[in-house]
């Protein structure tokens, strides 16, 4: 396993009744990070998650969690992970407290331990006021919170979350993201599969994109968004039109392209960071007498990266 990696997946393969779903998916997840897992419908996300959760056995390749094999050492692995499936799968006739008490007891906790842990997870998920309510009377968002509380009840080090934000309203989604950030601060590693790319961009430290059972990208989020190697793009916005600046930038060594943008006096400046530093660019602009409003790195949105890396259409 790589240094600091809690999850190591190599050449993972799986088929459903002869129909291949995964063709050698490979990625690693670092400790105390939030790792996004995205892909179009039918890409193999849920299958991968079920294998990580020890619910399915891999048919090829290897999956190690905390340096333990998910097939051979499944009992140890289960103690260390918490899996929240894409369906809620709850006992609607139980109260929130009974539900959490049941799962905490199933992980061998004593009554005082359970009392403490249930209070903690309910506080974290902001459900302490509803603990004696029946699950069937809760809204979907609240049930999601209880489901997350259940996953946290035995204090797992790794959380596998399959579409935790599906069906939540915007407030619910934002609150869920805050809870996940808090969990990272508490030292947990979060592996999250989601279709809501906007939120993943700010939430995740790293990301894996899969399509049709194959890994298309796996690595830091920054590197994906700033993809293009040493060639970078910066957006320069001036207070007013200043033609001399554009001329000076074109003549600067290392600058490969200067394009005027449609909205106001802004330019898209492309240069090679091996030969040119952004500070040198800024210095030159100021020397031309232009009044700079902003100079910022032009990062791609995750949506764009996703569209570039995945193929259109439904897998057949």
């Amino acid at each position, binding site marked *: 396993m790589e240094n600091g990696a809690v999850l190591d997946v190599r050449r993972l393969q799986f088929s459903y009744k002869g129909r291949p779903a995964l063709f050698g998916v490979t990625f690693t997840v670092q400790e105390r990070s939030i790792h996004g897992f995205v892909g179009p419908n039918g890409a193999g996300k849920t299958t991968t998650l079920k294998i990580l959760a020890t619910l399915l056995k891999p048919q090829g390749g290897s999956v190690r969690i905390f340096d333990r094999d998910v097939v051979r050492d499944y009992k140890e692995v289960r103690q260390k992970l918490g899996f929240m499936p894409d369906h809620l799968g709850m006992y*609607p006739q139980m109260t929130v407290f009974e539900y959490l008490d049941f799962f905490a007891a199933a992980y061998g906790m004593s009554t005082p331990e359970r009392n403490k842990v249930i209070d903690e997870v309910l506080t974290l998920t902001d459900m302490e006021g509803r603990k004696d309510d029946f699950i069937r009377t809760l809204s979907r968002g609240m049930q999601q919170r209880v489901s997350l509380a259940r996953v946290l009840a035995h204090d797992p080090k790794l959380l596998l979350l399959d579409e935790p934000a599906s069906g939540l309203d915007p407030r619910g989604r934002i609150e869920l993201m805050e809870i996940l950030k808090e969990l990272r601060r508490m030292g947990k590693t979060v592996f999250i599969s989601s279709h809501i790319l906007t939120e993943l961009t700010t939430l995740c430290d790293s990301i894996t994109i899969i399509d049709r059972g194959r890994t298309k990208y796996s690595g830091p989020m920054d590197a994906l968004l700033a993809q293009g190697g040493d060639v970078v793009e910066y957006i320069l916005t001036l207070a007013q039109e200043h033609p001399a600046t554009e001329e000076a930038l074109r003549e600067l060594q290392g600058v490969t392209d200067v394009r005027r943008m449609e909205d106001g006096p802004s330019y898209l400046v492309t240069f090679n960071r091996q030969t040119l530093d952004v500070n040198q660019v800024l210095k030159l602009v100021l020397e031309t007498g232009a009044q700079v409003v902003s100079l910022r790195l032009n990062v791609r949105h995750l949506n764009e990266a996703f569209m570039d890396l995945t193929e259109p259409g439904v897998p057949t």
Partner: protein
Amino acid sequence: MSMPVFVLFSRSLALDGRKFLTYLARMLLVLIIIFSLLSAQATSGAMGAPGLSFFHGAVWTTWLFISLAGVVLFSSVISEEKEEMTLGLLKMTGLNPVSILLGKSASRVLGGIFLLLAQFPFTLLAITLGGVSLGQVIAAYCMLLSYLVFLGGLALFCSVSCRRTASAAGLTLLLLLVFFLLPWLGQMMLDGAASVGWISPTGGFHVACTTLFQWMRDASPITRIETIMQTGFAESPIGFQVLSNLGVGVFFFLVSWLTFERFTREQKTAAPARILLFRRTSLFAPVGVGRAWSRPLIWKEFHFDTGGKVMLGVKAALLAVTFAVIAHFIWPARISRPDVEQLGTVMMVVSLVLAVVELIFHAGRTFNKEHKWQTLSSLMLLPITPQRLVYHKLAGCLLALTPYLAFFCVGAILSPQDFLTGLKGILGSPAGWMGILQVVLILHLAAYMSLVVRYGGVALALLIAYVGNTLTFPLFFFSFGNVTVFLIMQSLVLLFFTVLLHVQIMRRLVRKAGE
């Protein structure tokens, strides 16, 4: 068929016609009949009138098949739409209640009729084996067809009025048991009450009840089968039973139609009910759910699937009332001198039978519910083996049988001689062991079937067990000749299938959790 009222009906028929399962069911039923026929022919040397024996078996098997399948399949017609929350969408399409009821129910009843028609020509072969007339065969099929319509109507009403399929099936079964058992039990209670002087045997109440019970007996397919099986049967195939069953079936269809809107106006959650399970904040918390035990699966199963402490009390009270009724009403009417020892024996037998029935019922529900509510994956992720999970669930169900055990013990104390004789008879003979293995196999079969089919795992398990026994018993018996060898061989076969099912249950649980 282009009338709007038949839109759903014709669509259901077309869909059923394309299903492989429809043809498989017909083929299996015909195969069972052919196998029974061969079995009857093979054993004809040892039995008189093999045709009648085969016909007898075929009719009873079909009656049982209709009863079990009817309770499950017919009672889910509307309730399954309610559970899936799709009934509202169906109503929004503009289909009126009659077309929905016809489309959902009549197509299934018609499927059953087709099944009977496929079987009919093969049953006619019983005539060639001897002992059966054509009139008997026709009368039997008229009886079965009318019973099918009766059950279809009854189950449809239960399906319309209940929110969940399990409740609908339970209500159908209860009403069916009342239909079959009330004339018998009611008459005994009535005679008992008359013998102790509570009511006059010539009074209006006694006469009215006796008349009602007689009508019910005449309308019962069981009475009709007994009549048809008599040698020299020459009655009309369309008797009171046929007309009354058809009439009641149509009546329940009309009631379902009239009450359809009332019962389906609101879309309500189909979440399992929580009856008499008090929360920790309730005044009745001491008899409530309480905290999870150190074996939480046993706790969950005991409280949330079998009813918990309050249900134990309810069962104990019902058993006490039943035995009191037997001792004070039924007994005096049948036996001149009530005997405490005999009451003890009855308590043991009734408790044991009810315990087995309830256990089979739980076996057929426990995994099915987990799968239905998508909780199986969460359970399988617990750091315990699937075997442990199954045994803990079983332990929870066994706890629910405590009242039966208590009354069994009381019975054993009242009748120690019969207890010891019975124990020796069961444990000391191959027949006793075969009986135990039979029950264990049915438990496994019910649990396995509940993981295979969505509804009716128990019914299917009972049917398979019944058909299996009906087919293999005579064949094995006459092949081995010696009774002891036959019993040992049969026990080994049962043991083999039990082990096989045990392994398959574990595998299927793991597979279902990953789905």
